[in-house]
């Protein structure tokens, strides 16, 4: 992967300004009022324009629910999700907030070519020819051969599928991208390439990004801010360097202590 350094092409293709994503008192409850389960409990979180916020937590902590609520896949029980000060549109074809899913094996329709999957996310307007050119541009952006747009996902590896998923998210010309555990289903050797790509795209396009992961080392590498979530509540939040070097909350400390490789390796007997 090439070094993510600002280049002459760093201007966004459409020149749309990036926006701030703000969760205000967001609550998501499932089930009835009495016997329900609160997956996200009055969470407030801001993703500043052009920044990457890492959201860390264990399974069941509500981090994926928060992401799904933002794009309208989970119903809000309370609170608001604002994009640049206005509610995130969850209807209609223009979706300035896009999401990349965890499992690249189930996030692409096995019966559709990757070109069609990407083209589907392009808002209506451009002609067939323009769409094809846009698909080619997006594939190139994620370092895939544009000539392969007619291939079905069954022929691609996990890493390549995840790149297609990234291209599809970018096809919607988003201001903010939510990446939900996008490397946890990938082999370590491929994870690096996808992380490099995420950093490169984020810097080149100036995207705001909510990067969800359970892996602190990965979040540390990608995000400038970190929020730690547990049982539906954000327990700690701040600049990545500060949170990871000087955690204030016990749970953050426990998470940091559990990162493999942080304890001294065993010596050979």
């Amino acid at each position: 992967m090439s070094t993510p350094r600002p280049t002459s092409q760093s201007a966004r293709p459409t020149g749309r300004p990036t926006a701030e994503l703000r969760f205000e008192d967001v609550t998501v409850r499932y089930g009835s009022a009495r016997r329900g389960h609160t997956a996200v409990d009055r969470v407030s979180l801001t993703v500043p324009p052009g920044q990457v916020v890492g959201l860390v937590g264990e399974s069941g902590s509500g981090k994926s629910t928060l992401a799904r609520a933002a794009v309208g896949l989970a119903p809000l029980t309370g609170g608001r999700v604002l994009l640049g000060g206005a509610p995130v549109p969850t209807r209609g074809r223009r979706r300035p907030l896009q999401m990349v899913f965890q499992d690249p094996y189930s996030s692409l329709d096995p019966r559709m070519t990757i070109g069609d999957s990407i083209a589907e996310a392009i808002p209506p307007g451009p002609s067939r020819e323009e769409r094809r050119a846009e698909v080619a541009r997006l594939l190139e952006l994620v370092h895939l051969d544009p000539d392969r747009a007619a291939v079905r996902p069954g022929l691609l590896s996990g890493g390549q599928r995840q790149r297609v998923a990234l291209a599809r998210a970018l096809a919607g010309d988003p201001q903010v991208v939510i990446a939900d555990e996008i490397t946890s289903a990938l082999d370590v050797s491929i994870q690096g390439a996808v992380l490099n790509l995420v950093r490169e795209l984020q810097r080149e396009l100036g995207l705001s990004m909510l990067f969800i992961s359970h892996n602190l080392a990965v979040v540390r590498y990608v995000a400038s801010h970190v929020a730690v979530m547990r049982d539906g509540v954000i327990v700690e939040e701040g600049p990545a360097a500060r949170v990871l070097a000087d955690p204030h909350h016990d749970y953050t400390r426990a998470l940091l202590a559990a990162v493999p490789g942080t304890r001294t390796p065993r010596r050979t007997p």
Partner: protein
Amino acid sequence: MAAQRTRQPTRRWRQVVRTPLGAGASLLMALVLLLALVAPMLWTDQADAVDTGNILAGPSAEHWAGTDNLGRDILFRSLVAARLSVGLALTATAIAIVLGLLLGTAPMLLGRRLGRLVTASVDIAVAFPGLLLALFFAVIFGVGARGAVLAIGIAGAPSFARLVHTLVAGVAARDYVAAARAAGVGRVRVLLRHVLPNISEPLIVNATIGAGGALLSFAGLSFLGLGVQAPQYDWGRLLFDGIGALYVNPAAALAPGLTVLLAGLAFNLFGESVAKGLGVATLGHLPERRSAGPATSGPPTIRAEEPVVAGDDEAPVLDVRDLWVSFPGADGPVQPVRGVSFAVRRGEAVGVVGESGSGKSLTALAVSRLIEEPGRVEAARLQLLGADLRTGSERAQRQLLGTSLAMVFQDPMTSFNPTRRMGGQLAEVARQHQGMTRRDAFGRAVDRLAAVRIPEARRRAGQYPHEFSGGMRQRAMIGMGLMGSPALIIADEPTTALDVTVQQQVLDLLQAIREADDVALVLISHDVTVVGEVCDRVLVMYAGRIVEDLAAADLATGAAHPYTRALVAAVPDMETDLEQPLAVVPGRPVAPGEVPAGCAYAARCPLADDRCRAEDPQLASFETPDHRVACWHAGEPIPVDGPREPAPVDPVELVEVDAP
């Protein structure tokens, strides 16, 4: 790699015809349809010819099945009736499908509240027997062919709607539907583009079987006099006419009865064989992890020079020499494990790392005799505690493996029987292998659960697997392995499905068990950092071979194989330089079916030269006897030309992912 779900549809359909049953059913189906098409054109005149001199006659050379009360030939009438019978049945099925699709997809299109209403009404309708509904509607729509078609169509709709609803719900939960909706694709479009194509196959199967049912229902309605009315006639009507003359001419009822039978059989058999053909293809086949079926047909046994006594400090707990695992593939056998040799000493922790498809899990399964047919395991030596695992009775082997070897799998949920209490499942091991009484075995189970730090072990032993959290289930799985007195624990990605904090607890537990009882551990993981932290020694696997065998402490700085070094560098840790891009292993792993000549890693290796591409390096000692590397350029510095620039566009290499 995740099992491949997509296959060429045409190939699947071809598979339907390939079985004898499928071919027969297809032929029968084609005959019935052909008959429905051509019979009225050919034989209408004969069927309608009135012969008053020959009324209600029995079978004769002229009229094979006799004649009816107007002297018309019953055989010809039965043949000509095929068009009306099949046509009406297909129309009714079409009505059922269209209504079923509308009702079944309505919940997705209408939103939650209205959708629930539709689902509830469908559920109620499903509760009524189909024939009862048909009779009810037949009364409403009036006697006659049109009324019967509507009645049978509408009566068939609820069950079809239920099926569609279930299938739609299954596909709608997939991420690609969520992705399309998040991208702003409308509901109708999502339904047409993503959902319906992905549920079409089961729908077609059920429609075919449904058509058979409609055919029989129609014959039934006509037979009752509620369906087709004279002068029109279908099979049911002919049956109705024939029954009256049953004692005079049994053939008059038998002929239409036989045609109904054959046509019904054609539809149902065809539907079943389509279902079978498609079903087989969608399941795919991967070696299961259950049931120890010995599939060994090893090369001529090489006797170990000195029979090793179990418990001898010098003898390895596990000794594997030249282990091969092969599966039959489309183009000859595929060998995911190619000549692996290693030994595990008493109390030693050996990590096995590699990417998916490197053969690390299959190596473990081969050792524990869990490779199922058609997989084959061959080895020059395969010894656990000095006992040869390739020979000996299955019973003795099971005894040895059951007591001396503990396996821990990635997903503890599927490793337990969900309908039985934990304590009983653990106790079963001791009763099977150690011949303990029920009470003693249960006592030991509680003791073992406590040993793996499950709080309130006695109460927990009475609970079911779903009442345990993921980490606790994994600990219980380890506890199950400890029911015997294992000398070796093989843990295959034991923490991959767990959260980091829980992962740490499980790793700590494994460590504690090792230290307490001097148990050896083989830890298989894709995570180099986990292995480096827990193990003494690390085996790095690539394309079915061990490419490096080194001390875990040397992993970070002393690795000699370029692949090991790349693997270590590719994983970000808490000290990774944030300014630099992560090191990347270029290219992709080698699939088991397409191992190239020479070193399998050559295509991705920065040090590769012509020799690497021609000659496969063997695992050989490097610097110290304990450090083994399979590389022609072991330890050579990797050329640094800044951060390695990849080709700007990574061409999409095509892989056949259908490999077994």
